[in-house]
């Protein structure tokens, strides 16, 4: 461990907070329909889009209408993406956009991939540069990176409107929300971010793969492509699907330690800003600060544990006689599966940033993390992505926990639970309980199926290697159920003997189970969350009295941390013990 390593973690938390506050205020204006500084530029295209879409953007929707628009829009996106991916080498695709003449991946892999990108998961059973054409990456995957992220933010905005609503059943209008999210939030930051990335060395071209002749007489083939435009939204939308197989470890996606820092900020900026936006929209910024404090506390805890574990080195390194402490000119540590330019701190922090959110991008091989280092991302996933979480999903999931904490707090002090002046009743509590349980249920059920069946075990690469094999399976379904997308990458659902997909086939069990888990654990909670928003929207507001339990102070923040940890621990502790914890406690090699 080094001073620079610790400083990186602290500096990141500070800079993130300083950037997220103004963005949160800006976004609050975007979702309450106020003018912002971009309105003169974007007002006209916005109105044009509404006209072309024939959307009744001015009409308030109740939760059912909102959910219906959202689901049908997602279904349309699913169908289009599936068709694009399955026809990537069809006769009408120009050669320049498929320079290596890649065939399409088989149906089962495409089912998984399509479900993955539409649900903002971006789990990848394929390697980008050996499977996807430039056209598929741009027209299919990049577009879903934007709109699936947008859908998540819409739900968070709708839930906040439900919480503060005083005028009946309306929770906003889906079409207005999605258009404004894309135009006012995601697109402007993406344009600026992509240019920053290119200025640091991320590539953006349409040339064919290069062939280099090295000075020692070898040849090297180098993949190319329009990377920057996809890279930026991959982070900003907490998507995480890499242009290349090794994702943000690839020097063309993440060339320097600066881009690494910048990309981490891109991942967390919107989830963090949404918390401040929540404070603004409820008219009491301290509400946002309390939730932000809870998230930041758990985030820093995870980062510290991961950094210490990885700096310590792995049992395999020690058994081979290596010295893993810092020496002059090298920081040591578990550098297996990590890049020199990021180092241990830059890799551990990136790993935590992308697993507390639903980003799932990786700049190091999680499979090669030490037992405890690998337990950190799994614990983050077990907390159901509420530590900042995915764009939108993180905030709305956390707010459901807030609701639960208010209820539990109310029971403890023996008062009717009230939240921001609204009485919480059986319906909301039942619904939030349901929403909170869908994801763990999907994750554990699928893991059980996968480890107990022959078909499931076919995907495990570390079979017979002690806890690692179980960890691979658990991580796969935890990640897909939480719509995260990071992986113990040894777990496979796609056998691809050669680049270009000729002779490739998918592992149907893993592909289909994973795809269904992602769809269920994404849209299930969304519908239930919108129902909560609807139930809250119709309630009368009563002024806070002496007996009201406050939700904007430290006491409540501690209670909230307790509820999140308790639900996560009760649900996942046995499973985590079987995999990473056992591995972290032993120096044994398998």
């Amino acid at each position, binding site marked *: 461990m080094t001073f*620079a390593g610790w400083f990186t973690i602290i500096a990141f938390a500070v800079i993130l907070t300083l950037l997220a506050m103004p963005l949160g205020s800006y976004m609050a204006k975007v979702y309450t329909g106020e003018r912002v500084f971009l309105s003169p530029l974007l007002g006209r295209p916005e109105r044009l889009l509404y006209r072309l879409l024939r959307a009744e953007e001015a009409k308030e929707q109740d939760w059912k209408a909102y959910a219906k*628009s959202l689901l049908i*829009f997602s279904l349309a996106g699913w169908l289009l993406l599936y068709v694009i991916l399955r026809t990537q080498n069809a006769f009408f695709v120009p050669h320049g956009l498929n320079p290596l003449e890649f065939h399409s991946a088989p149906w089962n892999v495409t089912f998984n991939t399509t479900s993955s990108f539409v649900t903002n998961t971006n789990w990848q059973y394929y390697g980008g540069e050996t499977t996807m054409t430039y056209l598929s990456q741009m027209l299919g995957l990049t577009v879903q990176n934007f709109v699936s992220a947008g859908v998540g933010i819409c739900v968070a905005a709708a839930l906040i409107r439900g919480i503060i609503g005083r005028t009946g059943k309306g929770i906003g209008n889906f079409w207005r929300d999605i258009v404004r999210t894309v135009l006012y939030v995601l697109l402007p930051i993406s344009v600026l971010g992509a240019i920053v990335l*290119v200025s640091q060395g991320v590539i953006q071209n349409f040339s064919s793969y290069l062939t280099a002749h090295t000075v020692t007489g070898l040849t090297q083939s180098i993949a190319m492509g329009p990377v920057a435009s996809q890279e930026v939204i991959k982070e900003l939308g907490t998507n995480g699907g890499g242009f290349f197989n090794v994702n943000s470890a690839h020097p063309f996606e993440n060339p320097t330690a600066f881009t690494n820092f910048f990309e981490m900020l891109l991942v967390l900026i919107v989830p963090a800003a949404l918390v401040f936006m929540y404070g603004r929209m409820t008219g009491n910024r301290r509400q946002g600060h309390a939730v932000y404090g809870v998230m930041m506390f758990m985030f820093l805890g995870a980062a510290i544990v991961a950094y210490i574990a990885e700096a310590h080195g792995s049992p*395999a390194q020690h058994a081979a006689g290596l*010295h893993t402490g810092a020496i002059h000119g090298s920081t040591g540590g578990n*550098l297996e599966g990590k890049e020199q330019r990021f180092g241990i701190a830059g890799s551990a922090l990136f790993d935590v940033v992308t697993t507390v959110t639903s980003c799932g991008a990786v700049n190091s091989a999680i499979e*090669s993390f030490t037992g405890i280092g690998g337990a950190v991302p799994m614990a983050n996933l077990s907390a159901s992505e509420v530590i900042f979480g995915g764009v939108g999903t993180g905030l709305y999931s956390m707010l459901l926990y807030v609701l639960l904490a208010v209820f539990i707090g109310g029971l403890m002090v023996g008062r009717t639970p009230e939240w921001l002046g609204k009485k919480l009743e059986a319906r909301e509590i039942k619904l939030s309980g349901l929403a909170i349980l869908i994801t763990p249920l999907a994750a554990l059920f699928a893991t059980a199926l996968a480890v107990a069946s022959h078909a499931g075990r076919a995907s495990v690469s570390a079979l017979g290697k002690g806890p690692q094999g179980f960890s691979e399976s658990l991580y796969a379904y935890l990640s897909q159920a939480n719509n995260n997308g990071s992986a113990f990458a040894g777990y496979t659902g796609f056998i691809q003997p050669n*680049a270009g997909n000729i002779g490739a086939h998918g592992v149907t069990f893993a592909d289909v189970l994973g795809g269904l888990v992602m769809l269920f654990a994404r849209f299930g909670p969304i519908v239930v969350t919108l129902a909560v928003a609807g139930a809250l929207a119709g309630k009368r507001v009563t002024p806070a009295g002496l007996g009201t339990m406050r939700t904007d102070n430290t006491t409540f923040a501690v209670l909230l941390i307790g509820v999140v940890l308790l639900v996560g621990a009760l649900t996942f502790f046995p499973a985590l013990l079987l995999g990473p914890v056992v591995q972290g406690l032993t*120096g044994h090699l398998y």
Partner: protein
Amino acid sequence: MRRDIVTSILAIVLFTVLLGIVYPLVITGVSQVAFPGNANGQKVYVNGRLVGSKIIGQSFRRPVLEKNGKPKEEEEELVTEADPRYFQSRPSATEGGAYNAAASTFSNRGPNDEVTKEEDEANAKEYLELNRPYDTSLTVAQVPVDAVNTSASNLDPEISQANAWIQAHRVAAKRGLSLTEVDALIAKYTDSRGLGFSGERGVNVLELNLALDRLNGGTH
């Protein structure tokens, strides 16, 4: 319902045009004008020949030749050995030979895996055999981890400074240069940390090796 379906179809088509065509093309246009070198992958040419990308790691091993002068192959892969005149990159386990930048991949070696230990041991042994003749006090405990562990991308363009300083003994001896000259070049091609604190310092292997060749001639 019907209205939702029509709007959904229109929306996904319009978003596809805006975000899938207009946006990437605008970014490509701006990048190609403002940062053409970066946008095209920081290609490095020597005497008009493309030798690689500055930021993509590559192998500095050379093909082993059979007695008849042809490159030796085993199982359709070239047999290679470290070229002692060059700094060696980190170990790489991409398919189809090391540093295959058309198919990046993680090694996925587990922390408690017997295979990981064996790979580490083999890499450390090779490193010692290559460098100990020129730095006789070198022991396995002094081998920097980056010289033994594969990177995440398996395309890491950098090695640690400690790794470079050890290899400098060999490279200096093989090229008839003084250690001071080689160490000066290492310092020249060592990156600084991002923002002054983020990440680790590393030495760009390709740039360093090409600078050596400019100093006293390449092998090819």
